[in-house]
């Protein structure tokens, strides 16, 4: 079943239009990767879906049109975004960062506490630093925290904006493994944008290629890596 569907999604900043009508789909339980170079509009796509910038066109989530919804309504609906550059709360403790991730949840402190412990199990390094300020964590730890925080809202769809940025390849791999596991074990759907394609392609069910605000190709990971021109431009081999 289709979870997210955009039709003619257009967005930008003031007079500048960055996205020129994107048609995207993410089915339930899918990992979809959007590949694109710098300035292709990857982050803008994420922001347009999460409602943090004005957008036009239709955004349907679970069959409901949400393109007019405010960001908090979108989070409540089940879409959580991990912004580019971590986006943690540097002055808050690791534990408070996780708690604030559950802000939209209506179930009491008990189940939220259980979830906090659960993410500490998945990311043991966060558990060791639970009362430390998030700003004092390393880049990789902050990215883990940002992902765990987004998952604290128990989303159906996770938007990840270039989680590999500035991270060592090993850490990136570790993060992607966690995402893959959550996808397989709990059916979490993931929409991930990446510049660095190699790792992301491995776990993608489907891939979109974004160039200057337009989708220029789409298909399964295998199909796209079979295409010579695409392989040269995005995969580097």
């Amino acid at each position, binding site marked *: 079943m289709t979870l997210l569907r955009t039709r003619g999604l257009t967005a930008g900043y003031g007079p500048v239009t960055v996205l020129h009508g994107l048609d995207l789909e993410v089915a339930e339980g899918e990992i979809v990767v959007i590949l694109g170079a710098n300035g292709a509009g990857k982050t803008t796509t994420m922001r347009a879906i999460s409602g*943090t910038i004005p957008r036009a066109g239709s955004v349907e989530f679970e069959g409901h049109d949400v393109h007019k919804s405010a960001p908090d309504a979108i*989070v409540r609906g089940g879409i959580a975004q991990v*912004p580019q550059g971590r*986006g*943690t*709360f*540097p002055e808050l403790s690791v534990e408070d960062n996780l708690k604030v991730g559950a*802000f939209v949840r209506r179930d009491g402190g008990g189940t939220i506490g259980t979830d906090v412990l659960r993410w500490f199990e998945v990311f043991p390094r966060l558990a060791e630093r639970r009362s430390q300020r998030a700003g004092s*964590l390393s880049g990789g730890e902050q990215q883990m925290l940002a992902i765990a925080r987004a998952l604290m809202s128990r989303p159906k769809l996770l938007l990840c904006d270039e989680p590999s940025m500035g991270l060592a390849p090993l850490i990136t791999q570790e993060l992607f493994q966690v995402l893959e596991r959550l996808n397989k074990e709990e059916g979490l759907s993931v929409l991930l944008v990446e510049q660095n394609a190699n790792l992301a392609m491995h776990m993608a069910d489907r891939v979109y290629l974004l160039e200057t605000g337009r989708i220029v190709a789409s298909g399964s990971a295998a199909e796209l890596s079979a295409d010579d021109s695409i392989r040269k431009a995005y995969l580097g081999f």
Partner: protein
Amino acid sequence: MELFLQRTVDGLSEGSVYALLALGLVIIYRGTGHLNFAHGEMALFCAYAVYQFGEWGIPIGIAVVMGMGVGFLVGATAEVALVRPVARKSAFAVFIVTIGLFQFLNWLDGAIWGGQQLPNTGVGSKQVSYPSLFPAADDDFVTIFGAEITIKSLGTIGLVLVLSAVLFFVFNRTKLGLAMRAVASNADSAKLVGIRTNTVLMFSWGIAAAIGALGGVVTAGNAQSVSQSLMFSVFIYASAAATLGGFDSPLGAVVGGLAIGVIQNLTAGYVEWVGQEMKVGVSFLVIVAVLLVKPSGLFGTAKVERV
């Protein structure tokens, strides 16, 4: 020794007022990163309002709560109607807007209540003096180690300590507090976790102005009257307190306020050439000294972030 104790307690009592105002400055600074130049005038408007409630025969205990309600409305309205629209354009513009608001509120006080000190039986006030929150007759004092400490001083200090405890609880143990800290730390990410940042900022300004209202009422109670110039120097002391404690630390605001009160009273008492007239100079020196030695204040955090 009695004199020292007396001066210290008087200082703590005066400092409590600065702490109340500084708390509001800090809450607003943490929320939107602005210095609210009109903070003292918002408090003054509320102090006038409480005078008015008193004229209508409302007892001080209820009047002060109503005054804080007025403060909340003034603060929240200022954020929604004035600060938010210009904040999108530039942070400096907000500073100018709060200066404008400072002037407007002071003019408004004069337009409504006139330029004279109130209460004033000459212009028909029913109250004889501005209502005090605590018993303030001549014999309302306790003797501690030979020093005569007024109930009013103890009450004021107690008020600030209780309020600080309440605020600590709100900040650290409630969802609103978590939201306020999150917005202060990273407004963009706060939006992404579903916090209505605009509502939180409105609440921050409202709460800040409500606490300020309390400071205004206590100041007027100590002066036994309210007038248009009542809060000018208090605002400067409160700014000094926030600078000393750290502009992003509520604990710092309280400690800074109490410290400024004590420093002021002791220097005014023991250093002859400072005296009562030069007290403002002392807080100015404190501001300069703090900015030179530890710009983030005693409890403030220097913004350092690993990437």
